């Protein structure tokens, strides 16, 4: 392996020219040199940077061009068939692309911090916009600054009516994907019960369910700053492809600690940073797939999956067997009904279930 060959391989990989074998070879080399990883990640980031094309300029040029065509009698107005384009699909893609970051956070709704006199507070309080979704449904919201928020099932987003003032602040319970318009002088801040996230301009996903054990913040691209509520002096800068996990309840954690010791599972630290795993097939991350109507789970315990399924399908699920709760599962649900989903799961782990109305009980 020569030096030149390494650079040939990496440039081929970036430009999508590398064969399967070449990608494997490169992967092997990189794995042997973890110290290169940051630089290689940076190269990939630079590669993905799009040039900002000035569409306005192209549209102006098109008008001039059209004028020329008409003068040459090449274009008549009779042809005109304004097709509404392949719009929606393309826009979604563009949006995904712009979606620079994902943040997943879990916790309960924090208090609204309003400064000013009491009277002012009351006035402001009546100016709070609240958007919420029921289990099993999702919603897309356009904020006054042009930012877009997708709200996942059983979630709530609050923001002040004068949101576009000095600061852009929202409060979240549940999970949401944010596509934030960049404004240098106006940071965008998301409050959850456990953490605050400061963003300069990028896109991200926040998961903040009250009954989850952890607050998760996953960043795909861009940069964000996270502060944990009870440790206001610690600022955590997250790099792309990193996931910050914060245990929601230290007390609960201690009780779990003894159980963990018995099952010999390592006790998770209060705060940890993990690498996001990209799917080899389409280089997406599981953390943002809910937007595409996919429920993805990788190496998840049945107990954790059931919580997600409850929100996804708007049902109540109970597992009556401790062993089943610990079983690890992988998969994707897309258009399956709850029954089809359960049947699919029965293939990987044998269990029985009973359904009465909206309640499902699972046992051996």
């Amino acid at each position, binding site marked *: *392996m020569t*030096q030149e060959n390494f650079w040939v391989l990496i440039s081929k990989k970036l430009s999508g020219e590398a064969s399967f074998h070449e990608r494997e070879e490169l992967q092997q080399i990189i794995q042997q040199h973890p110290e290169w990883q940051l*630089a290689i990640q940076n*190269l990939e*980031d630079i590669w993905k*940077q799009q040039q900002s094309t000035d569409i306005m*300029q192209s549209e102006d040029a098109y008008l001039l061009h059209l004028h020329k065509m008409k003068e040459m009698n090449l274009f008549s107005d009779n*042809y005109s068939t304004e*097709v509404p384009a392949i719009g929606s699909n393309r826009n979604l893609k563009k949006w995904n692309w712009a979606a620079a970051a994902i943040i997943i956070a879990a916790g309960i709704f924090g208090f609204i911090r309003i400064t000013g006199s009491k009277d002012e507070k009351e006035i402001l309080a009546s100016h709070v916009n609240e958007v919420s979704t029921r289990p099993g449904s999702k919603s897309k919201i356009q904020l006054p600054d042009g930012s877009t928020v997708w709200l996942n099932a059983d979630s709530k987003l609050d923001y002040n009516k004068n949101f576009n003032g000095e600061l852009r602040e929202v409060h979240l319970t549940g999970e949401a994907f944010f596509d934030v318009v960049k404004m240098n002088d106006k940071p965008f801040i998301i409050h959850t019960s456990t953490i605050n996230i400061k963003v300069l301009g990028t896109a991200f996903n926040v998961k903040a369910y009250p009954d989850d054990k952890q607050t998760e913040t996953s960043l795909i691209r861009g940069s964000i700053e996270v502060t944990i509520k009870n440790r206001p002096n610690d600022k955590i800068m997250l790099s792309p492809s990193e996931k910050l996990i914060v245990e929601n309840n230290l007390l609960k954690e201690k009780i779990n600690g003894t159980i963990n010791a018995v099952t010999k599972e390592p006790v998770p630290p209060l705060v940890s940073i993990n690498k996001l795993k990209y799917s080899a097939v389409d280089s997406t991350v599981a953390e943002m797939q809910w937007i595409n109507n996919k429920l993805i789970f990788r190496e998840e315990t049945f107990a954790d999956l059931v919580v997600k399924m409850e929100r996804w399908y708007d049902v109540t699920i109970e597992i009556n067997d401790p062993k089943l709760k610990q079983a690890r599962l992988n998969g994707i649900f897309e258009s399956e009904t709850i029954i089809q989903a359960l049947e699919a799961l029965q293939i990987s782990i044998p269990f029985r279930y009973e359904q009465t109305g909206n309640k499902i009980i699972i046992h051996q």
Partner: protein
Amino acid sequence: MEKNDHIKRLLSGIALNNDQASYKELFILLHSRLKQFAYSILKSNEEAEDLVSEVFIKIWERRDQLTAIESPLLYFYTTTKNFALNRLKKQKRLQSQPVDEWLVQLNSVYFEPEQLMMTEEIVRKIREAVNNLPPRCRLIFKLIKEDGLKYREVAELLSLSVKTVEAQMAIALRRLGKCMHLEIKSISSVSLIIKNS
């Protein structure tokens, strides 16, 4: 790839239905990069603008033949290049225009440091490195990175071998890597291990 497929769809809309909406979409999709490509040869904004218009007039005039184009992206770049060189010949501005004299402007390296996890210092170094690339190397890098051409297409457009394109890309990436202190001096015999296993 995907880009070519998208252009193919638009072209068949134009060819089969005289679809002006597709025509407009195609123009807006390609205008900026073709103009920049034309500019690198003509070195005049006005002429580059005019040339792109000329290319698209030809597209409309020959719309019944559009579905036969195998690599549409390559077709557009080749047409732009030929038109531009013809123009130069007519104006007798230059007898020949070697690639080394083309003016290539890279756009995508002008990002803000905070968009990526990089220091200002590294970003400055990257710009410097890119601007100091030899012209031909910079052109190849731009066509592949910013314009989305395949190695094979660039090789055909510039009458080079694919191996040359590969080597030029490796040079560009190595220089970028250097900015991030990524210098590969020697590589352990990993590849040998893979082959033996």
